[in-house]
């Protein structure tokens, strides 16, 4: 009886795994096939092998932009957002964690309330200010904005970690005559690397996929990040699915690599209370 149910669960798990993994395999497989073959039989392996799809996806349509551009923009946006959020967020979280309990609870209401503010309440002013300051289509500025939007979660997670930071280690810093800032930089940060990494990875995944804000602030194709680029790209390659699938591969493979390298850390981040905003 229990063996029967055990194999029942295993079958269920394999079906779920197939439903989750097959789309990735299809994206990869279809990236290498021609439009005609995809139309004839999208499930098959027949026809020509067309690795040029990747070159066309990277360069874009003639006179247009491709994933080469999107990729560099995404890297820039992600770098600015993740590094800025980690530095500013960690300093804030650490110093707040030194306050007496009553005060901490009050101060933390600020990031907590920020986490429930919906994007649609912010979108139009973002556009308005970016437009007034002449920074529309500027990936760097969008990176700074993303850093700000990632801060509440970053501060909350890191605060929860710093609160449990052994006070003996901090005291050791004080005995050595280090001030608060140097204790933080020389003792706390080196010992908090796993948590800083976990939070940064969650931020990275959110930033890498963010669309609703980017579609409004990055309207020029040459300034777009990967998720918005995917949409622009789809409309310019409407009639040719090969390069579109190659583009989807290019959008997906980098996050898969990051995920499989750090999946332990990422799931720890999730259980520490991380969300993707």
């Amino acid at each position: 009886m229990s063996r029967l149910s055990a194999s029942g669960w295993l079958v269920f798990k394999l079906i779920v795994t197939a439903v989750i993994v097959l789309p990735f395999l299809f994206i990869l497989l279809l990236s290498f096939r021609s439009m005609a073959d995809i139309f004839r039989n999208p499930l098959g392996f027949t026809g020509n092998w067309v690795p040029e799809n990747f070159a066309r996806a990277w360069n874009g349509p003639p006179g247009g932009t491709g994933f080469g551009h999107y990729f560099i923009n995404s890297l820039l946006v992600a770098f600015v957002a993740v590094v800025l959020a980690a530095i500013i967020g960690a300093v804030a979280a650490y110093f707040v964690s030194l306050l007496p309990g009553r005060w901490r609870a009050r101060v933390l209401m600020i990031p907590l309330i920020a986490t429930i503010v919906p994007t649609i309440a912010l979108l139009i002013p973002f556009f308005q200010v970016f437009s007034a300051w002449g920074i529309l289509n500027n990936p760097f500025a969008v990176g700074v904005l993303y850093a700000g939007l990632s801060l509440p979660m970053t501060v909350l997670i890191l605060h929860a970690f710093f609160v449990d930071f052994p006070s003996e280690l901090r005291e050791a810093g004080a005995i050595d005559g280090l001030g608060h800032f140097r204790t933080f930089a020389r003792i706390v940060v080196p010992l908090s690397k796993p948590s800083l990494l976990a939070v940064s990875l969650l931020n990275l995944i959110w930033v890498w996929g963010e669309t609703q804000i980017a579609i409004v602030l990055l309207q020029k194709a040459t300034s777009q990040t990967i998720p918005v680029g995917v949409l622009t790209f789809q409309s310019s390659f409407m009639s040719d699915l090969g390069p579109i699938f190659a583009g989807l591969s290019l959008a997906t493979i980098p996050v898969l690599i990051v995920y499989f390298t750090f999946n332990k850390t990422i799931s720890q981040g999730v259980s520490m209370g991380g969300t993707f905003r």
Partner: protein
Amino acid sequence: MAGAPARRRATSAGLRIRPRVVLLAAGPALVLMVAVFALPIVQTIQLSFSDWRGFGPIDFIGIGNYVDVLTGSEFWNSLRLTAQFAVLATVGIVVFALLLAVAVTRGQKGDSVFRAIWFLPAIVPGTAAAVFWGISVQPNSGVINNILGFLGLGSDHAWLASPQTALYVVIGVAVWISTAFPFLLLAGAIDRVPIEVYEAARIDGAGQWRQFWYFTLPLIRPVLTMVVALQLIWNFNAFTLVWAMTKGGPAESTTILPVLLYQEGFKNGDFGTAATMGVLSSILLIALGAVTLRRSAARAAGE
């Protein structure tokens, strides 16, 4: 003996922190959060009382936008659609997430591998997943339609072109994309249920189903409540998925509120009306978010 008082002094100096120092250290974070959350909200509220068209000066027109939005049918239709979308997607997501979480917490071999793989949809850029699924449900050339054809169910369904089916296809894709995250949270919550609880259940002679219903579920209820609230909020806001798959069509059958707001503002240039819709939907969403706030507050203050 002589060292002790000196040491105690150093200790207390190391622990005490002046509020001014905290303010200085947390200042940049505070400024940035005010700049990207607080000021824009105030600005959205202001714009909702204006007829701003995306450029030039902002002229205030009183409550005109609110009267137009609340007396017209567009907003209410969209709200109904959004509620339908958010509730159905949330039910699907939470049911699957629970089922998947139970499946990997039975102490079987390979569960950590399943966990790692099942989280994948959460990390893929949403537009990439949406574009893939959008192409897969195209008649004849789409993967899904071909599988259906292979099973003898016909391969020429134009799922996204029909106002009767488009919304449900998008909901299905929402379930594929969004189950991963709550799955991991719920699996974590079930992991934390003490093993003694199950032993007690077994002694009581409870079967698998009763064990889950009477022992596991009540113990993970706080996490479950939070997951439901968060999913309702996220699916209410599922702009990316809908825009990438249907752009709100066909015949406005998938125009959920964030899509309507985007069209009204960024396509039609009527930012005043769009801001009004933003304010009205935000009131709903913030009320919903407040449900999660108490629990998060307890958690943030140190579990």
